[in-house]
């Protein structure tokens, strides 16, 4: 799966697509996160009007074996939530960068976008992570996400 060049990314595997005209950020999780989770079962998303704080959890995603926090990449207010996902997680599995978007946010401080990773930086981060994993022998049945 090709990752969009013009999106921003986080170390906690969220992506951000910023619409400068509308001053709106669409947020989702990356194909890497979806693959790691495998067998998606449930997602907990915030409601329109909820506030997000950069770095704080804004929801939960659950697979058969794990639960993971969704971490807010930006501070702002939720203006739209992808309602289709509640009943069908397939679009998240199949198109995490398009139809599988999670929420749309009005950022209170667009400068925060600069702290996010480019696609190149994210992919370098994933490579480094893979190297670290190879060195560590202590993989536990509970934390293989």
């Amino acid at each position, binding site marked *: 799966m090709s990752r969009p060049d013009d999106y921003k990314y986080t170390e906690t595997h969220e992506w951000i697509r910023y619409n400068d005209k509308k001053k709106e950020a669409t947020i989702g999780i990356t194909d890497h996160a979806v693959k790691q989770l*495998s*067998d998606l079962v449930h997602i907990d998303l915030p409601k329109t009007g909820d506030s997000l704080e950069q770095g704080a959890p804004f929801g*939960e995603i659950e697979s058969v074996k794990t639960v993971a926090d969704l971490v807010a990449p930006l501070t702002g207010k939720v203006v739209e939530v992808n309602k289709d996902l509640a009943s069908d997680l397939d679009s998240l599995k199949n198109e995490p960068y398009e139809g599988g978007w999670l929420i749309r946010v009005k950022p209170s401080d667009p400068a925060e976008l600069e702290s996010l990773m480019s696609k190149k930086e994210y992919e370098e981060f994933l490579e480094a992570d893979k190297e670290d994993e190879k060195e560590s022998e202590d993989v*536990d049945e509970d934390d293989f996400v």
Partner: protein
Amino acid sequence: MTPKPHRTPLHDVHVRRGARMVDFHGWEMPIQYRGIVEEHAAVRNGAGLFDLSHMGRLRVRGRDRRAFLQRVLTIDVDRLSPGRCRYAFLLTEKGTVVDDLIVYAGAEDDLLVVNASNREKDLAWLREHRSGDATVEDETFEVALLAPQGPRSLETVRKALGLDPGGLGYYSFGDFGGVPVSRTGYTGEDGFEVFVPAARAAETWERLVAAGAVPAGLGARDTLRTEAAMPLYGNDIDDTTTPLEAGLDFAVALDKPDFIGRDALRADPRPARRLAGLVLESRRIARHGYEVFHAGSKAGAVTSGTWSPTLEKSIALAYLPRELRKPGQEVEVDVRGRREKARTVKLPFYRREKT
């Protein structure tokens, strides 16, 4: 310094296939290959293939072995004819569970197949309680154990291995040209467990896969056994629970001559709490330890919970007061701070159609 996990003879086969490996009680095992739900479906609808070489295989020998086993196992060993497999327990004096296992009754010796997590504990415990000339040896590392499971597992075994265990009754085993095969499993489907020397494990695995068996990992093993309401040691049973609380009376012969734990069970034949099945309204999964509430008060806790691919529901097992075990009771499960509605159901959650 940290000890490295054991590897089964099939470790490299799993890695080459792209399995996600984890440390499972000191063994490096595949949790999944293509995905838990996909592997689960393969077992329910066709044939899946599990590597069970991590499970403890303890061989019991000696003229006095049956007298020894009669004292340490909960089943009536005198009624075990050669070729029979029986589910049984090793218990503490308090009637709580040391391990659950399957005993394979032979003519010259018997085999106990035990949980990987308890292999060393069981071996020490059995040796401590040995009597007469009975001996207990650990064969785990010499013999691989492959488990083709599913409605098409019989034809897959016939095609792949050129042997026909079709005549075996459920929970029986036999020797097929030097290959011991039992008709046993932990999935709720028809299935077999094939014992091969470690050196032949990879070849046997590849033949079964070529014949259509889908590699399946511990993730699917867990969703399958939970649907079939089969207990997992450490989750549903342990040294604080009795087999009667877990509803596993069928594997306890309370009226046979004395065995370790018998009197404690006889003193409490109708325990106050019993293992019950829950189906949640939400898709959120009830995980081990989550509290269960009835009419506002705490009633018990979840022991196992997972997603049921067959029912497409979140299901769980929990110890609840005996009265709440009746199907249709409404309870709530605290799932990470939020109470989710659930109702009790009759177990198992899934039962295969008898053909």
